[in-house]
């Protein structure tokens, strides 16, 4: 027997903490860490809904597995883009503008 208040509070807290991380970090990879926390919060909600025994299609567990898969694909592409940006600019500090000006992908 479990009360649902726990999973709801945990999901809300993880979403809030992850959003704070995505908004307040200067390093592009740490923004990704925040996004991972948001996804973990959503998965907690999915799994707790699926574990109540009312889920006839196993949607809770399956969608949590899909969220993990999509997060893996997203992290790999995002890190490839971040590494490419680092190779081009030398920094991944989001507070610094591009040294060539606001146009992207231009090399002087």
């Amino acid at each position, binding site marked *: 027997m479990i009360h649902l208040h726990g999973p709801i509070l945990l999901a809300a807290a993880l979403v*809030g903490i992850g959003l704070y991380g995505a908004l307040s970090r200067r390093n592009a990879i740490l923004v990704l860490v925040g996004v991972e926390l948001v996804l973990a919060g959503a998965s907690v909600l999915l799994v707790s809904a699926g574990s109540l025994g009312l889920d006839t299609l196993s949607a809770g567990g399956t969608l949590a597995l899909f969220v*993990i898969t999509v997060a893996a694909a997203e992290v790999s592409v995002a890190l*490839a883009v971040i590494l490419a940006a680092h190779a081009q600019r030398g920094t991944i500090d989001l507070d610094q503008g591009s040294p060539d000006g606001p146009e992207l992908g231009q090399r002087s």
Partner: protein
Amino acid sequence: MTSLDLLFAGFGLLAVVAGMLAVTSGRVVHAGLWLVVALLAVAGCYLVLAAELVALVQVLIYVGAIVVLVLVALMLTRSPIQASGTASVPGMHRVLAAVIAAGTAGLVAVVLWPLAGPAVPRAGIDSTVLAEHLFGVWVWPLELLSVLLLVALVGALAVWRRSATPGAAPGSGAGADRS
């Protein structure tokens, strides 16, 4: 408060504390490592909810692959190891971010709170039933996710190869045939 409530609260508290340390730590590598603790605590929450397969996949893929990728990327981009005050944006923006984050968390909690009533039985997610439904009801999204992973793999490689060949003009196609 049942015993499952207390266990879940323990793991949940660990996840929240580790998450807060991950997003506020001044050392970027410590932030990645606190993310490991947070995701392991979330896997513990899944075990309390009797969703063993999801907990194992979480540990294997989230902690074992995604966080490893994050740490390798932190090393490849030469992120500073020592404590740095430049890991987060300056003061006023941080307060604004905290207000937005608290508002969002409050919104999620307020919207979902009426769904929680008295104690409900925790049936868990049976791995056999989950596997049957995964390859039965959900087989089309599953196969599409395989394609998505392949596309992500090729895309990540293509992005890296384009940036690794500095003479590549935009729109010259895949750089795969320059070796």
